[in-house]
């Protein structure tokens, strides 16, 4: 197992524009940490089960204990108590993180709109009502952003893997996703809900500005 993890890490060295495990914002970072916790836990459980399986085949004296004892050990202990304990902890962890990632009211919140169609993205800005950008979303770095996501035709999904999880763009509904970029820079985004022939190319870019260039952007200057 550790060998395969090592291999995986080596393979991952190449590019990371859409990588979940190379987070560039608080939400994505929280989830990346979650992933590593999950991986370690899952690997430990997998090894445990495999060891138990292999040991079962060793040569030994048959029937050294009664069925009741076996039942208590295997089913009540390993089958019931063990998963309940692990899963309770995991569920609590997941729910706490999930609650934390919700778009709650915070000061200095920037609100933008993302409208998906086959196969393009149009972005609007609450601070600049008549302004739109196509295919590029501008945000300030280091500030929480609420993206109000919707679609005008079929279902799409707004996903910037290095900043946060994905959220669907559904006709007639507006979903709100909280994103934040730690540092200024460009981040790749894609639609992550299959939408027909142009699905693969249904992408966009998020440009995170530093404070100065963001002020210039909302002042209406070309970014």
């Amino acid at each position, binding site marked *: 197992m550790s060998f395969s993890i090592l291999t995986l890490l080596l393979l991952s060295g190449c590019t990371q524009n859409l990588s979940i495990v190379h987070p560039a914002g608080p939400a994505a970072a929280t989830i990346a940490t979650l992933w590593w916790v999950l991986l370690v836990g899952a690997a430990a459980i997998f090894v445990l089960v495999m060891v138990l399986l292999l040991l079962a085949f060793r040569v030994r004296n048959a029937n050294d204990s009664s069925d009741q004892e076996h039942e208590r050990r295997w089913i009540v202990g390993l089958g019931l108590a063990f998963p309940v304990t692990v899963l309770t902890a995991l*569920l609590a962890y997941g729910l706490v993180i999930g609650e934390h990632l919700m778009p709650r009211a915070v000061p200095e919140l920037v609100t933008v709109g993302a409208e998906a169609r086959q196969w393009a993205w149009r972005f609007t800005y609450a601070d600049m009502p008549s302004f739109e950008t196509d295919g590029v979303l501008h945000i300030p770095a280091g500030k929480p952003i609420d993206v109000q996501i919707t679609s005008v035709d079929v279902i799409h999904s707004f996903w910037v893997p290095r900043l946060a999880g994905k959220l669907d763009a559904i006709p007639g509904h507006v979903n709100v996703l909280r994103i934040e970029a730690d540092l200024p820079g460009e981040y790749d985004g894609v639609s992550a809900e299959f939408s027909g022939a142009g699905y693969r190319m249904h992408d966009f870019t998020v440009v995170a500005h530093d404070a100065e260039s963001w002020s210039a952007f909302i002042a209406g200057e070309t970014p």
Partner: protein
Amino acid sequence: MKDLIRLFVPLVLWLASFSAIYGLQAIMCRQGWDQILLIGGFGLAIALQSAVLLGLASRKYGASTKFVRQSSLALGLVGMLAVLWTFAPVVFLSACVAA
């Protein structure tokens, strides 16, 4: 058939409570009702599940064969566990904030 019903009733009841609470939450959020309703629903679900468990344990409604009796009681406990496990979040999560 009665034995079969004894085996399936506890978790089917859970499924019914589960759907009801899920539906209640959707309406609650739309109408702006208070979260206390959900906690009430949680209490009701526990009460119903306990009633089923008592019924399965009773001489009158419980099974007569050892196998069905033990299995249905185990499933009654599973039903209770399922209620506690799946509805516990209503007590400490915010109801209507959407992702």
